[in-house]
Every structure is written in structure tokens, then in C-alpha cells.
């Protein structure tokens, strides 16, 4: 690891030395080993979820057999994948997906429209609204949850899908990210559009939004992770199976029945699949836009 973070990213003359090559190989191998150690708990989870016998899972845990399954079986998934009844993780997964998709889609629209107006609008009071939005970012979700529970239960929203979606659609952080992204685009775009007779909204929809793919991808991933991992809020506002998300279901099951590892693990893998898909789909833009300093602390 001699040259950590200092290698100048520029094409160097081809090293003819084999010694450097060998060092490089060792270095890359080391990084891969570290990566494997980091990811190994997740591998354990997937492997264990494919084992039929829950006592075997525990017995295997202390050895390398933990990473190996001789006869993979989907029986655990069959046990927890029901759409109704006691182990209706299939249903909870669908609930979570409904909440995820609705929150992220409406969040992208609402927050990007607001960010666009704050960046390019001519309304009076834009600057004030922007400062308020930035100030609101400091308020942690945990410190508004108590009155919010009372508010939604008075409004008869308890135990619905809406109560898990609507409060978290608009978010100061994402409005700010969109605002930042849109402000970096050249203003000539808007001028040209307006001269061509496009309305303000039309310029946003047909010109700026298609250009903001990296920002849309970043916000999708961040918002997706945040929504998918909500725990405290849904546990307070869902009492029945009707709209219960999978995170709450797994936690409850795990708390009561920590003996059924196999089922808890299969349910956990189910829970990982959608967010992994979202991440893989948008990863290219996400990393580049993030590292391209869209978020500068």
C-alpha cells in the first residue's frame, strides 16, 4: 500500500518492471480481501437463507460451512412468502414497494419543481423560502414525530398507506440538491426556451428535467434508501397487517421468535432485493454525480 491515494490519475509510461506489477497485484488482492470481509455478513445471510434446517444454520455458523450450502433450497422463501396469514412477508413486501414507489416518484416531482423555481423563478420571496428550506434541514425527524402522531391520528390517517407516504414526500435536503443542480445549468437554456415561446413549466419539463438525470438518480437512491429503511415512524402508525411495511414485520417477527433464524433470514433477503435493484439501476449516475461534488458538505 505504498502509494495510497497519491497515484496521480494520469496515464503513466508502461512499467516494464515486473516487480511493480507484482506489488500492484498484491495490493489489488488485499483490497478485494478487505471488500470480501466487509461483504461477508451479507453473504452469510444469503447462504443461510437457502438452508433448509434451522439447527443446521446455527451449527454451521462457526465454521466455513457458513459460506457454503450443499443443497440450496427455496423452502424458507416458500414459508415466508405468503400473501396472508401469519407469515405474510409477501404482502408486507408489496406494501413496502407501494410506499417506496409512490414516495420516490412524488418526491422527485415535488422536490424538483420546487428546486427549479428556487433556482430560476422570478417570484418575490424566493430567497427567503430558500433560507427557510435550508434551516428546516436541521430538524431531525425524531423530534417532530410525537406531535405528528397525534396530528395524523386526529385526522383519521392512522394505519393507512397515505400516513407513511405523504409526510415524507417534500424534503428540505432534496429540494436543496435539485436547487443546486439546476443553478449550475446555463441560464441561456431558459432564455432560449422562453424566446421560442415555451412556458416556464414547459422549459422545466422538456429541457431541464431530461438534463437532470444525475440529480434524479442521486435523489432516487437516497430517498429510496431512506424510505425503505424507515422503522420508527411505521412502527408507531401501523397497528394491523393492512399497510404494515416489511421492516416492521421482520423486526416484530425477529423479536418474538428469534429461534426461527431461517425464516428471518429469508424475509431479510426479500427485503434486500428491491433496494439492491434500485441501487444497481442508478449506481452509475449516483456515484458520478455524488463524487462529481454534487454534494459538497
Amino acid at each position, binding site marked *: *500500500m*505504498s*502509494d*495510497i*491515494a*497519491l497515484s*496521480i*490519475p494520469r496515464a503513466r509510461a508502461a512499467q516494464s518492471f515486473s516487480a511493480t506489477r507484482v506489488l500492484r497485484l498484491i495490493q*489489488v488482492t488485499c*483490497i478485494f480481501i*478487505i*471488500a470480501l470481509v*466487509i*461483504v461477508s*455478513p*451479507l453473504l*452469510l445471510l444469503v447462504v443461510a437463507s437457502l438452508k433448509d434446517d434451522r439447527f443446521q444454520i446455527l451449527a454451521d*455458523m462457526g465454521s466455513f460451512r457458513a459460506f457454503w450450502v450443499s443443497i440450496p433450497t427455496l423452502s424458507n422463501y416458500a414459508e415466508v412468502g405468503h400473501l396472508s396469514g401469519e407469515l405474510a412477508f409477501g404482502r408486507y413486501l408489496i406494501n413496502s414497494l407501494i410506499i417506496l414507489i409512490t414516495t420516490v416518484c412524488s418526491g422527485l416531482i*415535488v422536490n424538483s*419543481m420546487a428546486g*427549479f423555481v428556487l*433556482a*430560476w*423563478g*422570478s*417570484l418575490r420571496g424566493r430567497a427567503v*423560502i430558500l433560507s427557510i428550506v435550508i434551516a*428546516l434541514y*436541521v*430538524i431531525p425527524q*425524531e*423530534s417532530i414525530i*410525537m*406531535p*405528528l*402522531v*397525534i396530528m395524523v391520528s386526529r385526522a383519521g390517517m392512522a394505519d393507512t398507506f397515505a400516513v407513511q407516504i405523504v409526510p415524507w414526500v*417534500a424534503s428540505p435536503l432534496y429540494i436543496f440538491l435539485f436547487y443546486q443542480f439546476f443553478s449550475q445549468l446555463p*441560464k441561456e437554456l431558459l*432564455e432560449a426556451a*422562453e424566446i421560442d415561446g415555451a*412556458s*416556464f*413549466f414547459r422549459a*422545466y419539463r422538456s429541457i431541464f428535467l431530461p438534463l437532470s438525470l444525475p440529480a434524479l438518480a442521486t435523489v432516487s437512491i437516497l430517498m429510496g434508501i431512506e424510505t425503505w*429503511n424507515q*422503522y*420508527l415512524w411505521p412502527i*408507531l402508525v401501523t397497528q394491523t397487517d393492512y399497510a404494515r411495511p416489511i*421492516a416492521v414485520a421482520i423486526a416484530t417477527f*425477529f423479536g418474538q421468535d428469534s429461534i426461527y*433464524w431461517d425464516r428471518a*433470514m429469508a424475509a*431479510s433477503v426479500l*427485503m434486500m432485493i428491491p*433496494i439492491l435493484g434500485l*441501487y444497481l439501476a442508478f449506481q452509475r449516475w449516483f456515484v458520478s454525480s*455524488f463524487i*462529481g461534488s454534487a454534494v459538497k*458538505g
Partner: protein
Amino acid sequence: MVMQQSTSPSTTVRKAAARRHDTGRLMQEAAMLAPAVILLTVFLILPFLLSFWTAMTNQPLVPRPTPVRFVWFNNFIRIFQDDLFWTALWNVSRFTFWIIPAQCGLAFATALLLHQKLPFRNLLRGMFFLPAITSMVVVCVIWGTLFQYPTGPFNQILGFISGGAIQPIDWLGDPKWAMFSLVLLSAWQAYGFQMIVYLAGLQGIPDELYDAAKIDGANAFRRFWHVTMPGLRPTHVFVLVITTIQAFKLYTQVAILTQGGPKSSTETVVHYMVRAGFEEQKMGYASAVSVILFVIVLIIALIQRQLLRRFDV
């Protein structure tokens, strides 16, 4: 947060807009801004203001026939008299103290590794970021298995390395170890985001500085110490502050794995608040705790602003 002043295109655009009907455009802008403003007002500003009001009442969770009374600062006084609250505060401070080196160290180290030109760099970045997209609930299921007493993987590994000299540790059931165990799993789950932030910071240091240092004959270590580290100062501040705020809000891991036990050794501020509000049904009391939590977070954020000003970012 670094604010970039957008070059407002107001003048030119306004002329163009004036040529067309200006009011129509303003109506459109207002309509586009309205959903966010309404939602933020109803679901963020309103409950936030309400929490200050509720904190000064004896409001229960479920409406009772007796009217809600205004009790001034009674709730706060009772909180400060409660030993358990101070235990919770002490616990999150301990947690913060341990998680900062664990999480930020891991994030910084992995970012340094991944910043180099590597084959499969994107694959590696994806791998290192995987824990960060894993839900805390799933993380608790996995680590609950790893921490099993007495025959879980960690205890097996310890026994194997020490040849049986180390007795199995009851990771989550022993007051000495419970908080430390939560630090381990939390750092593993959350370092990915900080890693990305560090990668962005490393990307922001101009190559010319490294070239100049090389020409001046600085070796790799000195380049790291005199170019990389100063260039990352604002990133360090940001990461430290984010980690601290997260740590003070510790809840999910505790709720799933330890419920604040053993012997209140993992009781946290948010867990204390939720218990007061929902198990004991004292909404006013719980709101007072949430106000205290907000004040803590605000102080940390203000400290960050001061530090960033100092570095003149």
C-alpha cells in the same frame, strides 16, 4: 453546507417574460412551488412548532375526558430529575465517542483505497457501499446471529484464535459489551455514505498540488500529510458532524436488539422518548424530550458552521 450563489437570470429573463404575460408565468411558478411549501408547512413546520407547545402541557397519547393543562416547564424539570434520562444521555455520548473512530476511520481508509486507479474500481466501490443500502432491520438480523451466545460465529472465532483461552462473550447480554457491540454493527452499516463523501473530497483536491509536491521531492507520506489532509479539512468536519448527529439519534438497533438493556446500558435518548410517549402514554413529557433532542442537534450543527467558517470554505 456550502452555498453557491446562483447567478439569477432575473434581468434578461424578466424582459423576455415581460414581453409575454408576466402574471401567467408567476402563476405557474407559484403552482410549481406550492406542493412542496404546503407539505413542508403541514408535516414539518407545524409539528415542529406544536412540539414546543405540547412539551409544556400534560397531553396524554389517547384523549382523556379531563382537559389538557398547561404545565409550563414541569416536564423539563421532571426529565432533568430522572436518572434514566441522564443514563440515556451518557450512553449516546459513549456511543458517539466509540463510533467516530470506528465509522469515520473505516470510511476514510476505504475511500483512500478506492481513490486509486484500480481494476474493477466500480465493482469494488459497489461492494464497499453494499452495507450502506442494507436496512438496519436486516443488519440487526445478521449481526444478531453473529453475536449469538455462546456459540455464535464471533465467539467461535475468538475461541479459535485464542485456543479456547477467551471465554465466550455475551455480546448483547452483558452490560460491559452491549454498547460496544452496537457500535460495531452501526459502523459497518453506516460507513458507506461517509466513504462516498470522502471520495468526493479526495476528488476535489487538484492534481497540480500533488505534481508540485512531487517536483519538490516530497515522498508519499509527506504528500499525504501536507496535501491530502489539509485538502480534506472541510470534509472531515462535515463527516464528524453528520456522524455525531446520527449517533445522538441512535434508536433502531436498540429497539430491535436490546430494548435499552441489559441494565439500561443501551438506553438512548430517542428510545427513552418513544417509551415515555407510547408505553407510558405521556405525550407532553415525550415532546419535551424531543425538544431537548432538537436543541442538541442544533448545537452540533452550529458548531459545524463555526468550524467551516474558520476553515474559510
